[in-house]
């Protein structure tokens, strides 16, 4: 289920297709999408970790 979160995050560009707020000079559109790469990676890590705990 956690693995569906990134799909939802990127689903509708209307949510993040804007300039403000800027993050370190990056328009929100770019900051948001780059940030979600890291979050995707972390979510997969969490799923892996939970799977190991269950065993």
């Amino acid at each position, binding site marked *: 289920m956690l693995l569906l979160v990134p*799909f939802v995050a990127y689903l509708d560009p209307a949510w993040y297709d804007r300039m403000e707020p800027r993050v370190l000079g990056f328009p929100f559109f770019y900051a948001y999408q780059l940030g979600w790469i890291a979050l*995707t990676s972390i979510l997969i890590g969490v799923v892996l970790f939970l799977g190991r705990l269950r065993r």
Partner: protein
Amino acid sequence: MTHAVRNEVFAGLVAFVSLIGFFAARWGSGNLRHLDEWALGGRRFGTIVSWFLIGGDVYTAYTFIAVPALVYGAGALGFYAVPYAAIAYPFAFVILSRFWNVARARGYVTSADFVRERFGSRSLEMAIAATGVLASLPYIALQVVGMKAVLVHLGGAFAVSNGELALTIAFVLLAAYTFTSGLRAPAAIAFVKDTLIYATVVAAIVIIPAKLGGWGHVFDAAGAALAARAKPASILLAPDQQIAYATMAFGSSLALFVYPHSITSVLAAKSRAVVQRNMALLPIYSVMLGFLALLGYCAVAAGISTKDTSSIIPLLLDRYFPPWLSGVALAAIVIGALVPAAIMAIGSANLIANNIFRGFDSGRAHGDAHLSKLLTLSMSAFALCFVIFVPTAYAINFQLLGGIWMVQVLPAFALGLYTRAFNPAALFAGWLAAMTASTAMAVATAAGGHGISPNMTFVFFGQPVTAFIALYGLAINLAVCSVLSPVFALLRLGKGTDATTAADYA
């Protein structure tokens, strides 16, 4: 003079990795006449080797040239590569760890091997294999295109007869070490390649924006310059581009890990845990890709103006990097083309040898690498000829088509990993319908003479919707499978036998 330094560094590095390619045959003990050893490195790669191998394979040199070029040319729309390279991972995490299990249990080398045993259907196996080969050939050709752009840019001896002489030499070397060392060659070279690539990208995203006044200024300047173009573009999406953006990201992410070269490098992992860990770690490459894409804006902000957008990265590097670093970076791109080209050649050679020729060559011992090795040579030769004799625009069009086609193997391959609810004959019919329809749509978009566009506009309920053709194709595919499966079941048609057992997947 400065170019001499750059070109010497370049030549030295490329020669160095070629040597690595040949010596890779001695890496670990293994009988390279055996297919598992030659094509999958003995299925022994750990987390780190796999990370370099898969990353070096999926993020190709063409990507490094084309993604910034797309952002340079089209603005925000070109950034779809980033969500694409993020959501591919949760998907691959689920699908490929299951596929890895069954492939290890039953000794599969290709996705079509699985489909054959799962559905007991020769025609479906051929369909999956043919799709993979057809999608790989233009992809290999585009790696050659990426190399050619760099060679022509280097000038001098590298650019003799439009870079084709140097290109041919590079490809003969590539074919030779792939033939002798198999997957071990690109795996070993990937270490060097990615170290160079990461060094280049980190240097680029520090040095270049700093010289242009910081990222904030790069975006502002690029936004203003794009808006002022004869054909205006923007650093934000227009509302009518949003669906195209999302569907292209989603559709491409579905295709990324079903390409034969991705399957090949994933199957070389030594355990399921290695595959899963890599799906969590590979997004690091996507971050790098994101920043590379933004170098396209740096090029706009720096006022680099060229008709040939594939040369913007070399131009940008030459302008802002010291010559030796520029040589390193350009070598990284060319080496970055050799790694995926080798794996693509291996992956598609396996499909032809294992899945297409199978029925016609019953004398061949199972697991013999000989035919695959020979076919790898012909794949490389074909790709090289394609680039030399066919205009680049065709290669790009075919590669776009290839991405659309790859998505159409998903019902048989990805859903097939979970269920046998679809009838094999219905899956074949769905594949055929989707391939025909999506190809027709893609060709129709080229009617204006601008080449193929990956998107097509349809009117749904009075609302025009522009979306990625691959997803229209997938919808047709699934619809045909769902409708025909119960019909064929009633007729007791082509049910096929399932050679896999539940234990193979766990």
